[in-house]
């Protein structure tokens, strides 16, 4: 990994953190619309994995992957405007928070709530690359909770039997909403869920952006070479509630404290400083920059119009 790549990763992680903190404060101030999802703790995964893709690769990120949307080129203004239901948002006010934030011109597939419906879609995108002999790879994120779903297994099986070039990243953040891993499943090692379908699987520290970037990158290249799908279980912790209104009183404080020590953003900044790649002042400057850009995104979003109700039925069908 070059210094430049690592610096870029740090920049995007800090940006993601700032963006998320801004969402929190907006909602606390009553300036939010509907609800939104907390991102804290997931930055190394969403940014590290997103960075590991090539420009023509396709990704289907989820609700904790603001970092990935950003890395892949989605304008923070459009994302913020979507959060606030504005016509300038990615979905023009049709879908909520990060839902539906797809854009084919950025090779991003938008998600629906029903988990993990994006996964077979990503597998299908990968199958289309094989169909057309294109040298592209698809990627999808899923939560630990989603590894229990039938569709997760059907999709891995389909990817395996089709040798589809798709990389699946599990964001194992210890909880599905309020339900801890032990109440979701009786298996401890999620890589067994790759083995069940003949999909190579590896578990990694999801709070270490270098590890995420390198592991995902390696599997992306393998997939591109024709080795088929891979499953990467990135272990992390959801550091806030499931969504903005969730008080997460069901999470033991000790668990949070423990993971706080391994905060992916701080840890990465410290590491790069220690390694002499940049200085604290540079980190502060990155943060200041991010804050300015996010403030601009908020201003843009809040000054954007709500969609015109006369457009209610526009766009249900393509080509009309």
């Amino acid at each position, binding site marked *: 990994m070059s210094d430049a790549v690592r610096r870029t990763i740090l920049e995007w992680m800090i940006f993601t953190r700032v963006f998320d903190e801004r969402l929190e404060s907006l909602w606390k101030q009553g300036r939010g619309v509907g609800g939104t999802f907390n991102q804290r703790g997931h930055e190394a995964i969403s940014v590290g994995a997103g960075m590991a893709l090539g420009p023509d690769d396709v990704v289907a990120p989820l609700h904790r992957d603001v970092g990935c949307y950003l890395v892949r080129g989605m304008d923070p203004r459009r994302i913020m405007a979507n959060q606030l239901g504005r016509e300038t948002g990615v979905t023009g*006010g049709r879908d909520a928070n990060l839902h539906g934030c797809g854009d084919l011109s950025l090779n991003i597939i938008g998600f629906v709530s*029903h988990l993990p419906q994006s996964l077979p879609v990503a597998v299908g995108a990968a199958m289309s690359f094989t169909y057309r002999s294109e040298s592209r790879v698809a990627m999808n994120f899923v939560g630990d909770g989603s590894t229990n779903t039938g569709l997760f297994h059907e999709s891995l099986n389909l990817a395996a039997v089709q040798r589809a070039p798709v990389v699946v990243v599990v964001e194992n953040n210890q909880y599905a909403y309020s339900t801890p891993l032990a109440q979701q499943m009786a298996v401890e090692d999620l890589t067994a869920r790759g083995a069940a379908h003949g999909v190579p699987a590896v578990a990694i520290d999801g709070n270490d952006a270098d590890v995420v970037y390198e592991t995902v990158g390696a599997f992306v290249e393998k997939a591109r070479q024709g080795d088929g799908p891979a499953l990467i279980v990135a272990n992390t912790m959801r550091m806030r509630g499931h969504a903005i209104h969730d008080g997460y009183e069901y999470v033991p404080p000790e668990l949070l404290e423990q993971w706080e020590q391994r905060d992916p953003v701080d840890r990465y900044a410290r590491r790069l400083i220690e390694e002499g790649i940049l200085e604290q002042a540079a980190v502060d400057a990155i943060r200041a920059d991010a804050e300015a850009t996010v403030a601009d995104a908020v201003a843009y979003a809040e000054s954007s119009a*709500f969609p015109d109700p006369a457009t*209610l039925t526009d766009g249900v069908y393509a080509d009309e």
Partner: protein
Amino acid sequence: MSENFGFTDEAETGNAMTYLQAISGALAAEMRRDDRVFVMGEDVGGQFGGAFKVTKPLVAEFGDRRVMNMPMTEMAFVGAGTGMALMGLRPVIEMQFADFISTAFDAIVQFAATTHYRWGAPVPWVIRAPADGGIRSGPFHSQNPESWFVHTPGLKVVVPSTVEDAWGLLVSAIRDENPVIYFESKPLYRRLTAAVTAEPAPVAIGMARLARPGEAVTVVTYGAMVHEALAAADSIGGDVVEVIDLRSVKPLDLDTVAVSVAKTGRLLIAHAANRLAGVGAEVAAFAAEELFTDLDAPVVRLGGADVPVPFSPPLEDAYRPDAGRIGAAVRELLEF
């Protein structure tokens, strides 16, 4: 995904009971009465007590055995509910949002709904499904999917609109020998209250309720839309508008509709679900078939637009009928 938008615990409501408390209360009462009754669903147990906290009061009293947390696998746990029901238990299965009921579709429409017809085994479960919108939750936390299940043989489907019915229909659903889907109206959860002194009585499934008597127009509706219809009726005033709350959309109490239309000669149907091939289509079709000579004017249907429920406030407001639109349509109908 479920964000529990705006539905955190709120201050106690004094002597009044909320719609949500009626659901919790009916569950607790039935669980006390009958050890076969239990609840299962995502996040219903533990310290959490469900995305809307409906089952929170149950955890302390009934423990893990009867408040069962499920992994996020709707198809499997509805199927498991069917197995438990076949063995004589009375599962009350919570969908985190009604929108996710489609994830369990086969387990409902193919297995549970058809079992008694095919081999005579009753499947006495209830699915509780927090439905409806108007609260800025977007396309996947606002759905009203009842029409799919009305069209499916073998199910019963109820949609309470009052605190008393929330209690009484849930009790009847639990005691029913058949699979019953109970759609809760999220917008009523904490907004609707009633002074309830004694335990509300069971409400028979399949009986509509005369929500407001009137002489000139029959408005047939259900769920949260009942309150919009009542507001519209009040705004028109007098005894012009008769409002019928279907309460049960399968079976439908068409006799009550017929009696009303025989009197008024005018029929308007309103619901939040997609108008196209919705429950209102069935009611209107019934009128076209059976009430032809009673009708003095065309039937009018108001319903959701044929689009995913949009998130942004102006779009969502345009999507749904409301008191204003019902009132306007009634006025127009009166002029026919």
